[in-house]
């Protein structure tokens, strides 16, 4: 049986749902269980495209659960905690934070999460002033 592209995407989406634990977060334990089961039961010649879609979806899901805060200088841990709380509330899932020092921002912070970027940096303000004139 040959699966169509759409069918493979649907299957990959189901695998993604099975990769979540009881807290609805992606866990490596569940992912390895899914991979073992798929390798056993899915035809070998269509395993590669299915796993590619699965990988893409897992990457996308991880991007939605991880936020990167870029800043110039220092940031208090209490601030990152409160940002994580606010983002978790806004995106309705537990968000983990990774920090990155970017001196080009001059001051302020820039948050990347999924497809969204929130920018309060001075570099962005200056860029806006520059493009406005």
């Amino acid at each position, binding site marked *: 049986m040959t699966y169509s592209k759409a069918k493979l*995407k649907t299957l990959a989406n189901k695998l993604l749902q099975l990769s979540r634990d009881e807290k609805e977060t992606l866990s490596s334990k569940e992912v390895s269980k899914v991979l073992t089961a798929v390798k056993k039961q899915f035809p070998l010649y269509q395993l590669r495209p299915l796993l590619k879609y699965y990988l893409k979806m897992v990457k*996308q899901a991880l991007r939605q659960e991880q936020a990167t805060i870029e800043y110039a200088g220092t940031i208090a841990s209490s601030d990152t905690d409160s940002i994580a709380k606010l983002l978790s509330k806004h995106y309705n899932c537990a968000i983990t934070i990774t920090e990155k020092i970017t001196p080009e921002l001059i001051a302020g912070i820039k948050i990347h999460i999924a*497809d969204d*970027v*929130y*920018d*309060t940096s001075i570099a962005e*303000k200056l860029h806006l002033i520059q493009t406005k004139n």
Partner: protein
Amino acid sequence: MSTLTEQIQKEIDALNLTSTKKNVGTITHVADGVAHIEGLSGVMYNEMVLFPGDVYGIALNLEEDEVGCVVLGDISHLKEGDEVQSTGKLLSVPVGKGLLGRVVDALGQPIDGKGDVTFKEQYPVERIAPDILPRQSVDQPLQTGIMAIDSIIPVGRGQRELIVGDRQTGKTTIAIDTIINQAQINRA
């Protein structure tokens, strides 16, 4: 000196301290003027997107996991992994009297070297035309400069006309003659 500091102070006062939110994506592949982008989950159909190097594009093909965009500019410098931003604006161009006598590209950007186009408003390109009744009635002729047309089948300014004819019979000539005649009338 005081004007300089006043100018800076004015800019500081005008600074908006709220954050800017952008919806971004990354190019997965580009070919034949079309870029496929992963991300841009909040993009609208027909929305302008901004590529690196201030090149604009239009989001036309919205799929579940990628967006197909037509690039309205030079694609030679675009590459896989480049960041693309949504603008939140539908494809629109400047309108108004500031455009009279100017040469602009498809996005309304000036290409005649006469500086920026002054405009007060922009209209979306894909706009529903107004109904017949609210439109101003045609009360002025459009002189083509060709006596046979202007006397027998006069054209009204604002009307649509169709030039039908076999090849090599002068359809383009009529159109160009009309443009030249208009230029002469408007210059006077």
